[in-house]
């Protein structure tokens, strides 16, 4: 009797496990894209367009789900087991972390797709109140005493790290590559920062809705969105003389797509971002397209200024992260408590 009962419960366990493990092979495929905050609108459009194309090409329907959140937090979720087929994050460093800590994709993932695996780029610009009352034209204006600068916390926000590195790179270029002078510049800049939001979207709200501060340092795409959202009569974009080439990166998560059997679809999804159609969607959502023909169509939207890369100026994200943003790094040093 006992054995029978044990056998029966064992069978039940096996059956339940089989049910949970088996993915109906012929049924609808689905892809999970784990992305960062400001891409909500972009990937909603991309998902729709890609699903149509996939249906036309293969006859299969595919459901694209997108998860948005802070870039670092999203990377952590994937490390902790969120079953992302694709990650599209604010900086390559966050995908590096997934590769290094969870071994879900190879360390050299960034070489697998063109343009450092970033199909679209952006840069860092300023958002000021309408009429630019404080006459902010370039990075130098941000360190003027008494000015209030809004930028999120680089320890929690990917966008904030781009902001910080853009300011540092500007100072380096201006003052003959003297790191001490760059450090003083960035220190003076952050002395003008009264609020450190945890994410880029939060900083935009603080500036636009709470009307705090004189200038917001922001992603170009986020600045466009804010101007459209809050009105051209409220704020305007100021493009500095030089800025950083922000390269948000994309990758498929090998371990997860192989388990889900979605590698083909995931590859096609990422390749779609590089097609003229995908590039056009990026441009319409205020990301700078890589493809020359699409970029030419939107030339008047994106002012041409000298843009430096993280690799050129900082020797890559790994080094930038360790020097500037790790605990005890330069950002912590210029922000000593009881300042």
């Amino acid at each position, binding site marked *: 009797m006992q054995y029978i009962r044990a056998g029966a419960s064992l069978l039940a366990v096996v059956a339940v496990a089989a049910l949970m493990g088996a993915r109906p092979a012929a049924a609808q495929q689905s892809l999970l894209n784990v992305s960062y905050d400001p891409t909500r609108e972009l990937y909603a459009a991309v998902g729709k367009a890609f699903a149509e194309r996939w249906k036309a090409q293969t006859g299969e329907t595919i459901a694209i789900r997108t998860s948005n959140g802070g870039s670092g937090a999203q990377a952590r979720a994937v*490390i902790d087991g969120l079953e992302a087929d694709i990650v599209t994050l604010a900086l390559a460093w966050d995908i590096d972390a997934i590769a290094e800590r969870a071994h879900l994709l190879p360390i050299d993932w960034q070489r697998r797709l063109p343009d450092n695996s970033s199909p679209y780029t952006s840069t860092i610009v300023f958002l000021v109140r309408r009429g630019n009352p404080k006459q902010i034209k370039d990075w130098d204006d941000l360190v003027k005493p008494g000015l209030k600068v809004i930028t999120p916390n680089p320890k929690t926000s990917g966008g904030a790290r781009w902001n910080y590195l853009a300011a540092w790179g500007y100072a380096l270029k201006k003052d003959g590559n003297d790191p001490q002078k760059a450090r003083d510049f960035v220190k003076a800049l952050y002395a003008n920062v*009264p609020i450190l939001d945890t994410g880029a979207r939060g900083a935009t709200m603080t500036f636009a809705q709470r009307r705090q501060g004189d200038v917001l340092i922001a992603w170009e795409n986020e600045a466009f969105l804010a101007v459209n959202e809050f009105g051209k009569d409220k704020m305007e974009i100021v493009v500095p003389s030089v800025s950083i080439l922000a390269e948000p990166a994309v990758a498929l998560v090998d371990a997860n797509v192989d388990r889900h059997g979605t590698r083909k679809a995931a590859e096609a999804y990422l390749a779609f971002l590089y097609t003229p159609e995908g590039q056009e969607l990026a441009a319409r959502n205020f990301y700078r397209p890589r493809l020359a023909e699409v970029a030419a169509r939107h030339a008047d939207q994106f002012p041409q200024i000298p843009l430096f890369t993280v690799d050129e100026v900082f020797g890559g994200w790994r080094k930038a992260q360790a020097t500037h943003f790790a605990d005890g790094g330069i950002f912590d040093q210029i922000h000593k408590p*009881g300042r």
Partner: protein
Amino acid sequence: MQIALAQHDGRAARRSVIPGFGATLGIALLYLTLIVLIPLAALVLAAAGPGIAGVLATLADPRVAAAFRVSFGIAFAAALINGAVGLVVAWVLVRYRFPGRRLLDGLVDLPFALPTAVAGIALAALYADTGWVGGFFARFGIDIAFTPRGILVALVFIGLPFVVRTVQPILADLEHEAEEAALTLGATRLQIFFRVVLPALLPGVLTGMSLAFARGLGEYGSVIFVAGNMPGLSEIVPLLIVIKLDQFDYAGAAIIGVAMLVASFAILLALNLGQFLMRRRHGA
């Protein structure tokens, strides 16, 4: 007198006049183990990863120390404010009958029901120098939102129900006879309040305050919107934990989490001990 009787009843129950002691104790232990003990053990285990030296290095960081000062100091101040004001609110709701009393009573629970992020956004809008309240104070050069004062406002907001809801039933059960007796014995109204009513309420107030304090320590959602989050000035411990996590420093986050747990446990234990002593003095 009443309390002494209650204690006597309690002792009788432990001699298992009521059946089912074994089963209920078993369920309670299992439940507490699953829900509380195992997650906490996992936290301690994660914190133990870097060893003693790593733990000390994390906690010795002046930024961590500053965050602890901010979190504990402001949560304590907010609990004090809620202790005083919560008592008044509970008093009004229990002792007087007036139109709109039920509505007011319902309002007390709102900070419980409201998602904390929503509370934070609302408070930031209201207390920023562009908001109604913040604009008023800004005229006198006092900024509230995006300073430590903003944290205080948020913690007072979320902590209020704890004191009101713990004091209310005690106040409702309080026998009027004791006050009437005091009155016939010639006590003034102030004397009645401070010598008769308040001692009976104080344990409840303290319980409510310690709950509000514990809640305030862990509060994240509403605070980050109004705090300004400047390191060393308005950066709370839960934010520091999130920052550590965002840097993939799981062990560092766990260490700060455990330190917070130990510190708040010690404080709550001390408060409970204080309550116990107080009860014994008044109950005897």
